[in-house]
């Protein structure tokens, strides 16, 4: 029997059929029909954010923690513009997102109507694709397609802008389209796999270089298998942390700007670099001409535009990295590489990773280690952006893909708290910890209200140096110590602020036994803010100065 439904009801029904169970957003005039329909849905839980950017990052947190496409909603005009940063962030980190925005009625588009903004035009450069829907009928095609595009190939955000008259238009529905899902990926060329295997077998000093694509394609176990079989020391980008457990004997940890010195020096000596789901980002490579100068390159990526973009590959393979690794694995020889392993051990001994103070919970590294000691590999670790982010990347023992949520490509302050809330909503059985800074937390502090309302199991560790620490560091090192606009002359009482939002808070500065206070705070369910002062003079070291080669690191 045919049903007559409005565009709004169709939209909600299509979301339900996609398997969406939680969405985050904020209503407003131009999206009220959809909210009215959403209110009738028993399948979908709506989480009311306090700022649309928060809603966007909550959806990102859900998507990053689970790998499934997540949904955020906003009204037209300021609602849509507030979403943009979270969408751009998802684009740069290849996170599958469907953002649904209300738009003024079609008859009013282009008239500078109240809360009209060209959401379609604004979102072109920051989405994988976008739609302006012109009829209720079209929704039946556009919504499943939006999900298919978001999840297919290299994932990314898709925006669907729906004018209000399309939401209220009623049509008869004869049947429903299949939910949109990821399209099958093209298989790697057998000849390229064979060529890559031969290069791996012939290499004396190979390194496996894992990027976020390994996490996105669910290929982390295969990457570890390949490393073990072919004896490949392995580096990870910021986005790939957790793909190989840090304490795996073949793990060299993070490469690049704030990687360990021995890691970057090993790359300097390698004769083969096997890049998997990585894009040779400048924070990873340093000065490109000096990156792995002696190495041949195998580059495996789902996105053909990534091959030869920064570095020409000797063998380029366009394929889902999981499929390619599965084909590569039986093709490579089992090999131990005693000389190379010994050389790497020597580099590690000569330049041991320096985590000063890691036994003192009142120091930055010690705090991170003390938090980690309260948790296991099931925990989710989110960060904001700044020194604290890099310290956590260096010191937290990440052991599981999708354990680590951080804004890599866009480096967006304000990412941490809402993304962590999203992860906690999507995976309520896990403890989620968010390391944030006193600058970053203020960029989405309003979401503490959402955390309280939803009672998410979220522990926010606020590393408070009363400054924009990473800026302070850059000015100290590269701008003649001329500190300007990087120190706060007045800082909030964050413990009181958190309590004011209705979440419990503890100040480690005041605790006689900070470790005991941490264990107590982390083991209690529900949201909690843990405040700790950090010495503003601490730097993120070692560091590749801007424009320098990775071998020329400074500090520690």
């Amino acid at each position, binding site marked *: 029997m045919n049903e007559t439904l409005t565009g709004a009801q169709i939209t909600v029904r299509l979301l339900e059929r996609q398997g969406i169970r939680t969405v985050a957003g904020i209503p407003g005039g131009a999206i009220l029909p959809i909210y009215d329909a959403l209110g009738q849905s028993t399948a979908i839980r709506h989480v009311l954010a306090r700022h649309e950017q928060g809603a966007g990052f909550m959806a990102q947190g859900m998507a990053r923690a689970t790998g499934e496409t997540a949904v955020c909603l906003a009204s037209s005009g300021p609602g849509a513009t507030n979403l943009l940063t979270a969408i751009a962030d998802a684009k740069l980190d290849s996170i599958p997102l469907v953002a649904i925005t209300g738009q003024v009625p079609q008859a009013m588009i282009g008239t500078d109507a109240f809360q009209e903004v060209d959401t*379609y035009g604004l979102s072109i450069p920051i989405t994988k694709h976008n739609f302006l829907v012109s009829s209720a009928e079209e929704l039946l095609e556009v919504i499943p397609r939006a999900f298919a595009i978001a999840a297919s190939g290299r994932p990314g955000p898709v925006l669907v802008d729906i004018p209000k008259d399309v939401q209220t238009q009623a049509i008869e529905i004869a049947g429903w389209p299949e939910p949109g899902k990821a399209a099958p990926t093209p298989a790697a060329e057998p000849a390229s796999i064979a060529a890559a295997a031969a290069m791996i077998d012939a290499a004396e000093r190979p390194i496996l270089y894992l990027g976020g694509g390994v996490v996105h394609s669910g290929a982390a176990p295969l990457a570890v298998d390949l490393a073990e079989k072919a004896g490949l020391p392995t580096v990870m980008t910021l986005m790939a942390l957790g793909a190989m457990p840090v304490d795996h004997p073949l793990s060299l940890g993070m490469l690049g700007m704030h990687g360990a010195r021995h890691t970057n020096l090993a790359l300097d000596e390698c004769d083969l670099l096997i890049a998997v789901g990585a894009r040779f980002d400048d924070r990873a490579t340093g000065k490109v001409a000096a990156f792995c100068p002696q190495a041949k390159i195998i580059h495996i990526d789902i996105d053909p535009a990534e091959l030869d973009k920064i570095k020409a590959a000797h063998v380029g393979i366009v394929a889902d990295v999981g499929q390619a690794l599965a084909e590569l694995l039986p093709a490579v020889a089992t090999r131990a590489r005693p000389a190379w392993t010994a050389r790497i051990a020597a580099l590690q001994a000569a330049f041991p990773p320096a985590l000063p103070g890691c036994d003192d919970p009142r120091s930055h590294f010690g705090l991170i280690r003390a938090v980690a000691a309260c948790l296991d590999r099931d925990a989710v670790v989110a960060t904001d952006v700044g020194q604290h982010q890099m310290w956590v990347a260096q010191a937290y023992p990440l052991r599981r893909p999708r354990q680590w949520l951080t804004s890599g490509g866009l480096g967006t302050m304000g990412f941490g708290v809402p993304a962590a809330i999203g992860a906690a909503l999507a995976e309520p059985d896990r403890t989620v910890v968010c390391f944030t800074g006193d600058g970053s937390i203020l960029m989405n502090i309003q979401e503490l209200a959402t955390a309280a309302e939803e009672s998410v199991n979220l522990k926010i560790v606020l590393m408070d140096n009363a400054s924009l620490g990473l800026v302070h560091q850059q000015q100290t090192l590269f701008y003649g110590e001329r500190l300007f606009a990087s120190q706060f002359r007045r800082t909030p009482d964050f413990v009181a602020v958190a309590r004011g939002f209705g979440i419990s808070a503890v100040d480690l500065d005041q605790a006689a036994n900070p470790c005991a206070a941490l264990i107590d705070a982390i083991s209690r369910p529900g949201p909690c803010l843990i405040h700790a002062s950090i010495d503003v003079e601490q730097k993120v070291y070692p560091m590749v100065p801007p424009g320098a080669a990775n071998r020329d690191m400074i500090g520690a």
Partner: protein
Amino acid sequence: MNASLPAENQRLSRAVLRIDVTDHAGVMSHVVGLFSRRACNVEAILCLPAGDGRHSRIWLQVEDNPRLPAMIRQVEKLIDVQSVARCDAGIFERLSGLAAG
């Protein structure tokens, strides 16, 4: 920039791309914007309906520079783009009289 001298004009090399797309309101801004956002000047544009009317063919004349192949790969990734090919400049040479008038 001021109109360049004829001699200078000769030296700048150009590429003409033929791009087949699905036709809808946003497709031109997706395609053209991809070049302009990368600071690549689009010097000539032609767009005509093709085949069944649900498709269009776009010709673009752009500056040929070492970054062009990377830009073409990005254009190929656009959801509404079916194919991109380099072609000769004949189409715009035949039209050049229009601008003179």
